[in-house]
């Protein structure tokens, strides 16, 4: 017993409190409350916030920053009318590409449409219509299913395609836009 006492060396490291004084004080002083992240809820369409919007499909020309996009986004119903009937596209095939950010097949064929718009720039003018923003244009053209391509020359329908097969779309462009 004496031996054990003799070999005992006092602990030199200072005793450290696990809790800081502040933490211990507030633990006793107030119950813990939870926090509701209302902005995160609103982003999910919660508590009456509008449902989240799908990210729009990008129609910018790939690899050519600053250049005029081959596919033009239709801004409003009047712009759609002008594109179809206006003098700027007289004699050209006007292609209306109806799409939406949530439509996966629309996203899939977007690069194909982009390439075809560039390749046929002389004979065709390609316009993208986002049906989430331009529901009235979709209704006016009886579009209820996506992806949908409408091809018009001087206001007259010359082609109509529903689907997302790149080869079929290519063939459609060639058949309709080449024979000017």
């Amino acid at each position, binding site marked *: 017993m004496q031996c054990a006492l003799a070999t005992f060396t006092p602990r030199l490291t200072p005793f450290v409190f696990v809790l800081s004084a502040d933490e211990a004080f507030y633990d006793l002083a107030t119950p813990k409350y*939870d926090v509701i992240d209302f902005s995160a809820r609103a982003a999910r369409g919660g508590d*009456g916030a509008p449902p989240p919007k799908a990210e729009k499909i990008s129609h910018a020309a790939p690899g050519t920053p600053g250049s005029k996009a081959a596919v033009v986004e239709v801004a409003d119903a009047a712009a759609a009318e002008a594109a179809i009937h206006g003098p700027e596209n007289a004699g050209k095939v006007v292609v209306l590409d109806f799409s939406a950010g949530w439509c996966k097949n629309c996203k899939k064929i977007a690069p194909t449409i982009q390439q075809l718009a560039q390749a046929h720039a002389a004979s065709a003018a390609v316009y993208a219509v986002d049906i989430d923003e331009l529901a009235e244009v979709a209704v006016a053209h009886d579009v209820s299913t996506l992806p949908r391509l409408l091809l018009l020359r001087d206001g007259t329908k010359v082609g109509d395609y529903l689907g997302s097969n790149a080869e079929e779309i290519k063939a459609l462009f060639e058949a309709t836009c080449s024979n000017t």
Partner: protein
Amino acid sequence: MSSFDATKDARALHWVLKIGSLKQSMAFFEHVLGLRVLRHEEFESGCEATCNGPYGGAWSKTMIGYGPEHSNFALELTYNYGIEGYAFGNDLQYIAVANPSALVRAASLGYNVQGNVIQGPDSYRYKVLPRVPGRAENFLVVALRVANLARAVGYWRDVLGMREVPLPPGLESHGPNGVVNPSTVLSFGEDGEQAMLQLVEVQDGQAVDHALSSGRIAFACKAVAPIHAAAVAAGEKVLTPPLRLPTPGKADVVVTILADRDNYEICFVEGTSRCSVLSPHLHHA
């Protein structure tokens, strides 16, 4: 009287309210009733014990109360994403709270106040009563419409083992034309210490209608198996036989869900560990 003592230590935990907007609800509960958020959880899909109602989508659960859940009654606010309102029935009469200043705040914030009853969001009503000296629990009763009082009491008292307690002052219920609605107040535990249940036979000739907004009451108890067995033996409805719910990072929770004779859902949660499960925590997963 009940033939088992499993409910001897039972305690009323919470009442579930289905809500159409957490934002509007919290504005009311925080600023009028003075309740705080004890626990808020967001879920991506429906709950196994249908805690959020018969909905499979994203939902959230917010426990609000006057104090920690292990010693205070709470309200559980269930919000289902995409659902901004429910068809409301006539089942829940009111929730009575002892918090007199709520009336003034409700009136100043533009809520509909009639006498001592405030109409909160989602058409739920709150009866405001004076504080009871010496009573820690600020929730007094959850008042439910029943079709037949004797039949309902026969369930809650004789099958579940709750005790009848004298009607606390201010909880007399009057129907149209001042007719007194017969009612019985029941409680687990010592008289008047817990949040209680008031069964009201409303004299307006209407049947109990839960519509799509039916709530649910939850009790903590020592063991759910004997309660489930008692319900089965009495030929009463069982919605969920004893079910083990895994709670990540904590001891599993065993629950059973019964229905009374007016189809009110009753959830019994087993074990003392429920206290730790229910304790408020700041950082949820």
